[in-house]
């Protein structure tokens, strides 16, 4: 089974967010980048598990610059066989999906896996876009997947519940919690990752359909109002008359 896993970097979850250039750019100064947790914990590890069970290969793909190579090596340390980087700064989901599709359509992949969203722009867009480019079904928010020959059975989250679906490969699958358990790379993996192939390919210069023109931070909250733990009637009264939420 040939598996392609889309990997993106994201700022560490404890990052303090700020902007520069008149609030038009994310301030990357001092920001530590990690592999986007959904891509790493669920998509990548699921890909590796499927390879372990059925044989085949796991290739990661990232749209980004040389600055992303450290994140890509981390994915290789966890157990991907090789990596591809499409050499262009990623700025818009449409562009990222078009670049990945451009590479993937030549590769006859059985499965394209990615995390359900990135934790920076939270767009949840690339998977669906990629599926349309590749004319494959898109199983979004999958929590479980089994592959049996050329068929996959998946549980996916739907509004208020869970749906079990079956489809023929190839598929694009966005992976949510439940798909797999996080794996910590061991020393052997980290050593091996240094020599695994990381191929840099030229971008096709796909157009950006959207751009961020300005950013802002939420207005600071006013101080908390403390309520006597013995007086929950007062809390209910405030929620009703002051906050007007019940």
């Amino acid at each position, binding site marked *: 089974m040939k598996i392609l896993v889309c990997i993106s970097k994201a*700022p560490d*979850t*404890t990052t303090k*967010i700020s*902007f520069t250039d008149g609030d038009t750019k994310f301030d990357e100064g001092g920001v530590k980048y990690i592999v986007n947790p*959904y891509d790493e*914990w669920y998509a990548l590890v699921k890909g590796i598990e499927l390879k372990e069970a059925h044989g085949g290969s796991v290739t990661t793909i990232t749209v980004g610059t040389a600055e992303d190579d450290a994140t890509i090596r981390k994915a290789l340390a966890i157990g991907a066989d090789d990596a591809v980087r499409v050499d262009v700064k990623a700025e818009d989901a*449409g562009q990222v*999906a078009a670049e990945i599709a451009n590479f993937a359509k030549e590769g006859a992949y059985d499965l394209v896996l990615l995390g359900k969203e990135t934790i*920076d*722009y*939270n*767009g*949840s*867009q*690339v*998977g*669906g*876009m990629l599926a*349309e*480019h590749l004319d494959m*079904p*898109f199983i*979004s*928010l999958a929590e479980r997947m089994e592959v049996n020959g050329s068929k996959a059975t998946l549980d996916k989250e739907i*509004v*208020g*519940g869970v*749906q*079990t*679906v079956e*489809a023929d490969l190839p598929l694009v699958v966005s992976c*949510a919690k*439940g798909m797999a358990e996080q794996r910590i790379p061991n020393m052997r993996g980290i050593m091996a990752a240094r020599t695994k192939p990381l191929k840099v390919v030229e971008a096709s210069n796909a*157009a*950006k*359909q*959207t*751009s*961020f*023109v*300005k*950013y*802002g931070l*939420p207005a600071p*909250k006013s101080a*908390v*109002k*403390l*309520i006597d*733990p013995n007086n*929950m*009637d007062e*809390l*209910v009264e405030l*929620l*009703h008359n002051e*906050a007007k*939420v*019940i």
Partner: protein
Amino acid sequence: MSVLVYINSNGEKIAKSAFEAVTYAKKLGEVTVVTNGKTDDSTLAQLGKYGASKVLVDRSFEGIDEQQLTRMVATAAEKEGANTIVFSNDLIGKAVAPRLSVKMNAGLVAGATGVPQEDGTIPVNVFSGKAHGFVKVNTDKKIIALLPNSIQPEETGADATVEEFSGNAGDTRVTVKDTKFPEGDIPLPEAELVVSGGRGLKGPENWNLILDLAKELGAATACSRPVADSGWRPHHEHVGQTGVAISPNLYIAAGISGAIQHLAGVNRSKVIVVINTDDEAPFFKAADYGVVGDAFEVLPRLLDAVKKFKASN
């Protein structure tokens, strides 16, 4: 300007997020709604109340297959000459809108939190709610997927006309084997009130404290990540940066410390109530109302107070 809105009408009733999307679209132009399935004409006509002039319904297929829906919405957009398409950014919108974006070469604004500004840019949340940004769409056609609970549905109009149409939806390549809806649960992403518990509740055997209060309030239930990781509660209740991001009117957090990753998923709640024994818990900085106390005592008292309030109102 003609604006097309996709809504899901496959459930028992039309969700509030659909009314929000129609209300939003009405602020942009003349609204046509497109949907599929069996919902009867008179129910669909009620979308007129929120500003729809017309509802196109494809009765030839049911379900929420994202490829079929993409083709149907594209067909409707062409028929109506609509250059702006609005979705709710719910789980269906998240699967269909990106596909449609490629099919129609239309820039997608996912998770819009408000109407376009004077310069045409559209506000969205970024960095898991720690900041917001304004998006410019560079293509002629655009798709806006509205974050649930960002605007209130407004009743302005009368009934809409309902027309059957063929969306050329084609076949599905995905077979649905089973659909399960946990009984009595209110879906978390759409809930207006949420009661949530953390590690401070000590174990799953104490969850009746959360469940009873949620039931009395008509609220959905949520939890912190370690609670879901330990199997005390199901995964879909995990809120935060790596769980579900929610923006209810009221979020009540008991025994949750308020780590930055947890806050990222809930800081868009309109009102936050925090119950914690530790008066230095970081969550109090993000709270509107705080109760420094033992959740095992405070939650039953709060439950009684809510009962009393409901009895007298």
